[in-house]
């Protein structure tokens, strides 16, 4: 008991320090290699140069970051709305579930890279990019939310049936169903919905980047992925790396925010959000 009490804080601190040390060591090795071997910047820029480029090109890159971020977040938001709404619809009726779910799966398993050129033909560029982000982010939310809604405790649903009175009319039946949904199924679905959202956050960014690359057109509305392609054509490799760093940071921030959201929502009751016992 006393032993775990002693190792616990050290253990959680090491989860921050260990990767930090690895990160710093890797960056230092990279910097040292580039300097000592005299690698030209158009092949491999040093980390210091990437940071300098990031600062110098900030006016261009920040605009691009904003565009990609907007697409990603809008895609995620639409995926949450669409995914939860469709999951509700499918969970209310088996007939609807059987008739629609296979198409949602088909949409998911088709690689989005292959769909994006088509979308670009049918839609204006901005909408097409958004649609791509939505398509990839939508499915994990749909399938996880559906799983959650269906995993409500049968005994609790029995208690609900026992105490909520006998619904006579169709309207009462619907009202009682919605009440069970609100009181029992929604809370039961929350953990898996949040898991779906954690996955969808990353996927939405991937969808946005893929679509931007496929779109490949210049202009005010071009995001980070477009800047990466453009830098590659111009052999502006430091800027390519800088854009890549921003994309990676965006992904990390999205993951951290969705994880924090999940922990906040589940902190009292779900095993996944429990603090290890001190």
């Amino acid at each position, binding site marked *: 008991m006393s032993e775990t009490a002693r190792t616990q804080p050290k253990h959680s601190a090491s989860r921050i320090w260990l990767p930090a040390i690895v990160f710093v060591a890797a960056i230092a090795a990279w910097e040292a290699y580039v300097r000592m071997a005299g690698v030209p910047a158009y092949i491999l820029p040093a980390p210091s140069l990437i940071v300098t480029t990031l600062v110098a090109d900030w006016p261009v890159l920040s605009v691009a970051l904003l565009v990609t971020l907007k697409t990603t977040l809008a895609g995620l938001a639409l995926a949450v709305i669409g995914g939860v709404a469709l999951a509700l619809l499918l969970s209310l009726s088996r007939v609807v579930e059987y008739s629609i779910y296979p198409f949602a799966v088909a949409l998911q398993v088709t690689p989005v890279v292959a769909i994006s050129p088509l979308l670009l033909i049918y839609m204006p560029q901005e909408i097409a990019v958004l649609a791509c982000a939505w398509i990839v982010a939508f499915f994990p939310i749909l399938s996880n939310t559906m799983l959650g809604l269906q995993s409500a405790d049968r005994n*609790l649903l029995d208690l609900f*049936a*026992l*105490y909520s009175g006998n619904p006579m009319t169709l309207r009462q039946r619907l009202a009682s169903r919605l009440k069970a949904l609100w009181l*029992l199924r929604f809370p039961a679905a929350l953990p898996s919905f949040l898991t779906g959202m954690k996955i969808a956050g990353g996927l939405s960014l991937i969808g946005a980047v893929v679509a931007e690359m496929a779109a490949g057109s210049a202009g005010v509305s071009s995001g980070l992925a477009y800047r990466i392609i453009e830098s590659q054509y111009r052999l502006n490799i430091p800027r390519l790396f800088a854009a890549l760093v921003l994309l990676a940071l965006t992904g990390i921030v999205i993951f951290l925010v969705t994880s924090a959201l999940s922990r906040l929502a589940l902190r*009292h*009751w779900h*095993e996944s959000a429990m603090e290890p016992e001190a």
Partner: protein
Amino acid sequence: MAASLQPQSASPLVSLRGVGKTFANGLTALSAFDLDILPCEFISLLGPSGCGKSTILRLIAGLSEPTSGSLAWSDATPADHRSEIGYVFQDPTLMPWASVADNVWFPLRLRGVSKREAASRIDDILSMVGLDGFARAYPRELSGGMRMRVSIARALSLRPKLLLMDEPFAALDEITRFKLNDDLLRLKRELDCTIVFVTHSVYESVYLSDRIAVMTPRPGHVAATMTVDAPRERDARFRASATYAKLCGQVSDILARAMILPGGAS
């Protein structure tokens, strides 16, 4: 040995006559099940696993309909009895996202009682089951025995006439089970409700019950009922007494004979 049918004269609270239940998958859980549940008695349904004990409780609660036979309440006009029933499952089946108080509030909430109106009742019931000061705790933070207490408190929140308990203590350790057995007897005295208690433990059924209905294996029916001939006040002394041992022996004999009865093709 009193293995007779209904010797009591009081009119039953619920009576089941020739009740049969066959599920959609063709499984016959019950056939020709007869039983009278008398007001304010503690009756145990004792039988092997899968003999349809839980199905009986579901039928009484109106959560499922009998395939054949009839189930009647004592009142002259048929009424909705569901708010007069408390139901305790083998698992505590609490809502993990809700505090202890909110879990106990659940049946009241479904009957349209607001949290504010229910507050004092929730407090009373929690102290009755020995959970003072745990209203704001979450189920995850409680031990197995305490979760079962919350489950019992929830079942009692509507002050039910009839409490249905489906092997509620089967998953608990013996020390906790003995404690909860005593507390259940005390609650029964305080609330004066009828309890139908499903168990597969001979010892538990003898300790708790006024009457024991021994069931055959599937398809289940009542092989014999036995009145437990002992004072209602029971404690550790009763558990150690010769009377208790003798009663347990009798019930074991009845159960052993019920296991080989025809109709009980397992």
